[in-house]
């Protein structure tokens, strides 16, 4: 019997292009994370910082407009909120730290589970390739990083500009915009590659969190100890999170002279970590494990 005449629905519409199937994968990943209460709990904590800054910028702008004399006093008291690059850098660093913690707990759900329980089969038997899967998952992690760091920072930047000197602020502080995007991109690429690489090998939350803690807590401590022992500041580069922050500083154009000397080393360290992560990811997507 013919398939169509026997009741099969034929359809001649346009399918979503194969090359873009990484988007639905990323979307699925983000939605899965958004369903987690833990995510919202940690984000709620980090949002306190955002709300504080948002309200402070607003209050400062209002007082400066209505009562410049009081405004000077308020500016003196709230010196940390100046609309300079440091304000956004510090904000993004705090947000990024919270996001980094969240990612340690969602790594199993986003990537590890696909390996641990054979869920990769569901992806790879569809009309999408391994690179779509990898890019989709990296995009999902990057999107979470961007949602919690870049987007609120951009909101604050826009708020500061519109509530203070309007376009003059944007004209004079375009570097801040580049800093927000640059620092955000750096965090997104670094965290997504690191999380994918670790989760694809470790799969489960406990070893993943322990490894995460080693990289982001133990190594910086070790680096600081070695720096004190040998008196060489380059030992600080062992702190991967510190390296990203250093490069974030550079993106905002606010590196000190001492930090400036370490920027090249930090770039080399971060790129080396990216390469190691990519090398670790390749064998995990080259073939589906069949013999366990």
């Amino acid at each position, binding site marked *: 019997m013919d398939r169509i005449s026997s009741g099969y629905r034929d359809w*001649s519409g346009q*399918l*979503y292009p194969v090359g873009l199937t990484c988007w639905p994968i990323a979307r699925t990943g983000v939605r899965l994370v958004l369903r987690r209460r833990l995510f919202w709990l940690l984000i709620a904590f980090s949002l306190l910082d955002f709300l504080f800054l948002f309200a402070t910028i607003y209050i400062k702008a209002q007082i400066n407009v209505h009562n410049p004399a009081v405004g000077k006093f308020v500016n003196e008291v709230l010196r940390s909120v100046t609309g300079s690059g440091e304000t956004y850098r510090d904000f993004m660093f705090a947000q990024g730290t919270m996001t980094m913690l969240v990612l340690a707990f969602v790594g199993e759900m986003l990537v590890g589970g696909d390996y641990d*329980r054979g869920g990769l089969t569901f992806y790879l*038997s*569809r*009309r999408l*390739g391994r690179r779509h899967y990898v890019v989709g998952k990296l995009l999902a992690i990057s999107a979470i990083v961007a949602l919690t760091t870049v987007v609120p920072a951009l909101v604050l930047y826009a708020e500061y500009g519109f509530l203070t000197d309007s376009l003059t602020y944007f004209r004079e502080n375009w570097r801040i915009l580049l800093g927000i995007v640059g620092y955000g991109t750096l965090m997104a690429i670094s965290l997504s590659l690191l999380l994918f690489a670790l989760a694809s090998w470790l799969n489960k939350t406990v070893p993943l969190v322990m490894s995460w803690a080693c990289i982001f807590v133990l190594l910086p401590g070790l680096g600081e100890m070695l720096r004190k022992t040998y008196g060489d500041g380059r030992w600080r580069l062992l702190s991967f999170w510190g390296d990203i922050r250093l490069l974030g500083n550079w993106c905002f154009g606010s590196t000190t002279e001492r930090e400036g000397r370490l920027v090249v080393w930090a770039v080399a360290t971060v790129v080396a970590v990216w390469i190691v992560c990519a090398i670790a990811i390749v064998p995990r997507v080259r073939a589906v494990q*069949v013999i366990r």
Partner: protein
Amino acid sequence: MTATAHDTTAPLLEFAGVSKWYGPVIAVNDVTVRLEPGITGLVGPNGAGKSTLIRLLTGQLRPSLGEVRVRGRRAWSAAAKSHIGYCADTDAFYEEMSGQAFVRTVARWHGFTGRELAARTAAALEQVGMADRASRPLASYSKGMRQRIKLAQALVHAPELLVLDEPLNGVDPLGREELVHVFTGLAARGTAVLLSSHILDEMDWLADRVLFLYRGRIIAAGSLPEIRQTLADHPLNIRISVDRPRELAARLLMVETVQAVQLAPGGDLLIQVHRPQECYRALAELICAGGFQVERLSATDVSAEAIFDYLMQTARRL
């Protein structure tokens, strides 16, 4: 790409001299086979290469040698994968999702958007009888319901080839009957169904053809009676209930193809025969000439399980 861009002249699925190694281990060894519409069973002991064969045809693995083509396209290409619906044996779901959300997600991976996405999701859920329970989280589903959802996600893009890995595992008898009805319905509509199962009884009444796999090779392919006929080393066992068993037994011993005759405690005759086709002809002539009243006549070892045992015995001797 459109959903109807099929090259229907090329074979639906073709393995041409396919081998696959994992380091020094050979999982699939020089397999050449074509799949036809209808239900085809894939049978083999653990480690025979069933999973590898399925992963090769669903484009999850590339062969070390040879080619796997689906409608003329290499199996790992997106064009080939769009012809295949795969229901894996793994239970790896995103537990927080509802059944509907999971099927919709898979439909989205297949490239459907908007109204078509919703319509396809609803149709697939309806087809497996899960439309009324699809909004519940996957974590709350029973094993049988999870199997149905897996089947729905495999059907959501109306594939030409449906690959089912242990699809009836954990399904209750009623659900089993319903799912079998879905499989046979799909096969009747022209969908090729490849069913891998370790429950050999299912193959007897479900599969039109069976592929027996052993140590990476296909050692037999065809319908069960066809395969049984090729097993010349193993005489066919026939049980006959007849009114005068001793007389028939005496006459049967004169037939060249009859190897042994035994009178069972219930009065039935158990016969071992070579070359079954010749023997059936001779038996029919004897029964007609002697005027015997036959109550029942059945071959007792043409089941998938019996054939599988014989094949394994033969294969181990090689």
